[in-house]
């Protein structure tokens, strides 16, 4: 009897497993069909043409060389670049959630979330194993952020852009700061980006009208032009039942970018006064009940993307507006064009994604082509602005659109914020980057979050905890 039950049990679990496996196999094409079907005429046709013509015409032309690897491995921490490539790279086809195809090359997405340095840890392993990996397993392309770009560009694991055959002339339209981030200590450019990330204050028009009687960016700007006014206006919002920002974490980047000191000097960790000011201002905001303290990206932080969330403003660059604010979800503020943008108390930048070629890639010309198309081709980049409202890394394109009255950002209720962004992009200074930024600023926010929440009585206690966490993470640093 027992034997029977166990047998039945095992066979049912096996069958269940097979069913779920088959289920996914059967469902996957059905799911991908929808987007493919709509885009097929546009995307596939030229790809098919190119493939057909390539052998006849010139194999060494724009299409990837035929003798290169058939697998392109791209290492990333989220879906952003994937969706950019899917929408804008000619000939990219979606296969399933983690793979795609460009011509006969399979594109493998190795996506590891950023949390707790997981992405960097994974990428480290992959790059360190690069030499011994089989050609099809080698990382070809990886993405980095400004917070830790130095860690990778200052090594031989990243290929100089020049070695891919890309000339300075092709790069001349990019914003200089985007190149500074990925230039190594010898002055060699090791990566490229399609976006610029000047940040703005994005506020809810409805709330602005209700509390301040207007949703005009210039008038709102006057109410938020420095941190004291910001705090005052936050009080007015609070009386009306609104939070000025979703979380104290929202303004962290603004203060951090305006810091004078790099996080690390030699091996010594240093905390800039402006960061201390962030802690003090945030503590004031939180104690007054003007905003919450949750971590970014969580479901509570997101609430303000919907009218029920009662959040007045978020701080962020173009990618936040486009990529994060749930514009495609019914009922969100973004969906109804309910946001507007203004400079806010201080200029800042936030994030940005850089593409680097991994040394040892077996697809150099495809990698070069992706870099050219996505980060240097004005037509593609303009298309990114028009379709996704991203701020692209191409000065002429951005300036043209900034002065184009027909360009309207639907999420921002038809406002053209590009002038504001262009001005911000010119002021970005990336001199303070270190290889430790991501870990240290994460630990700083963790420790200070506990002070702001009232778990630590004093700033000094929280600072002590910050050093504990930082030295645990980076034993080579000192305090």
């Amino acid at each position: 009897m027992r034997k029977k039950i166990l047998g039945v049990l095992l066979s049912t679990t096996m069958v269940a497993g097979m069913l779920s496996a088959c289920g996914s196999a059967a469902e996957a094409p059905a799911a991908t069909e929808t987007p493919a079907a709509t885009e097929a005429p546009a995307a596939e046709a030229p790809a098919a043409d190119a493939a057909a013509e390539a052998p006849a015409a010139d194999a060494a032309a724009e299409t990837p060389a035929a003798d290169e690897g058939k697998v392109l491995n791209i290492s990333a921490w989220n879906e952003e670049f994937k969706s950019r490539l899917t929408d804008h790279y000619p000939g990219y086809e979606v296969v399933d959630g983690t793979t795609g195809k460009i011509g006969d090359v399979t594109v493998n997405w190795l996506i590891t979330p950023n949390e707790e340095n997981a992405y960097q840890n994974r990428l480290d392993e992959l790059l360190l194993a690069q030499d011994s990996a089989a050609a099809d397993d080698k990382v070809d392309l990886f993405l980095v952020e400004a917070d830790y770009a130095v860690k990778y560009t200052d090594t031989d694991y990243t290929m100089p852009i020049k070695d891919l055959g890309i000339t300075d002339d092709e790069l001349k339209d990019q914003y200089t700061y985007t190149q500074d981030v990925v230039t190594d200590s010898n002055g060699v450019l090791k990566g490229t980006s399609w976006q610029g990330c000047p940040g703005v204050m994005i506020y809810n028009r409805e709330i602005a009208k209700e509390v301040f009687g207007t949703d005009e960016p210039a008038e709102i700007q006057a109410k938020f032009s420095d941190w004291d006014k910001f705090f005052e206006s936050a009080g007015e919002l609070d009386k009306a039942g609104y939070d000025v920002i979703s979380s104290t974490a929202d303004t962290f980047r603004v203060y951090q970018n305006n810091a004078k000191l790099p996080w690390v000097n030699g091996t010594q960790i240093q905390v800039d006064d402006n960061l201390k000011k962030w802690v003090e201002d945030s503590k004031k905001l939180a104690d007054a009940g003007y905003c919450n303290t949750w971590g970014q990206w969580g479901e509570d932080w997101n609430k303000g993307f919907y009218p029920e969330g009662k959040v007045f403003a978020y701080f962020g660059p173009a990618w936040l507006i486009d990529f994060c604010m749930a514009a495609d979800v019914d009922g969100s503020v973004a969906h109804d064009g309910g946001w507007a943008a203004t400079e806010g108390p201080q200029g800042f930048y936030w994030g940005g994604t850089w593409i680097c070629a991994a040394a040892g890639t077996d697809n150099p010309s495809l990698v070069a082509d992706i870099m050219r198309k996505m980060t240097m081709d004005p037509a593609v980049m303009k298309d990114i602005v028009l379709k996704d409202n991203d701020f692209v890394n191409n000065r002429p394109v951005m300036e043209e659109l900034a002065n184009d009255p027909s360009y309207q950002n639907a999420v921002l209720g038809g406002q053209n914020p590009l002038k504001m962004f262009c001005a911000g992009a010119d002021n970005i200074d990336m001199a303070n980057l270190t290889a430790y930024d991501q870990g240290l600023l994460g630990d700083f926010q963790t420790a200070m979050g506990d002070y702001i929440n009232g778990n630590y009585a004093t700033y000094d206690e929280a600072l002590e905890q910050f050093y504990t966490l930082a030295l645990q993470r980076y034993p080579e640093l000192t305090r």
Partner: protein
Amino acid sequence: MDKNKSTKANHNVVKFNRWGYIFLIPFFVTYIIFSLIPLFSTIYNSFFENYRSGLKQIGPNFVGGANYVNLLTTPEIWKYLGNTLIMWVGGFIPQIVIALLLAYWFSDPSLRLKGQRFFKTVIYMPNLIMASAFSMLFFALFSDSGPVNQILLSLGAIKEPFKFFQFVGASRILVMLMNFLMWFGNTTILLMAGMLGIDSSLYEAAQVDGATASQVFFKITMPILRPIFIYVLITSLIGGLQMFDVPQILTNGRGNPMDALTTVIMLLNRYLTSKDVGRGGALSVFLFVVTGILSLVVFRINSSKEKN
């Protein structure tokens, strides 16, 4: 019996007994490769400075006992050991009290509880739940806008969402609650098995002498249960020291708030994921010694079981 056999030992039996070694080969080969060699390699590595700074490998440089000195003189390890013990005790005390009570009721013939099978099935169930999924579930349920807050709000018990994960006490209580839920059924069943093993004539004698239920419990049941009680305590402590899945996922590896949910194994996990081989090795050896001492106690209990 042994003696009997060996004196009568003929070639055949000896030949057969060689099979004992053969049958042990898979176990020992696997154990040596996947446990013993790693153990020695861990100990060996604990004497070296060996970590990564960015993509640069630092070491290995022999540093003698520096990693141990470092480990034992910084306050972190003691703080995390403290966190671990607090959360373990907070789960264990209610667990053992409730388990004793339920086991006593289940095995008390005069109560004649109905539906015992149902209750036992239900209370044991959380033990089999994937701890990572269970803590992800708790994270979702107790989040600021999660169902627990929604229910409390609609019942009017609170005015605005209670932020469970911002308070040390509340977060630790959630971990304790989960540990309690996952283990009290298991402990109940273990204790009950011990109670059912008690000779019923003892109870009858007590009843004849006019003992009350609580007298029977404290004077007869408890003393007889003592060995199994200690067994449960020590195994639970060893398990408690390994506490990882629940706080790791609940706090996303950070041990927030205030690092107060960080357990010793979470620290080990931090070292392992950042490839800090030296400090990770010293911590592993420290844990090995602590659990080794505790294991010795369990071992003595088990081997006395063996003899019986």
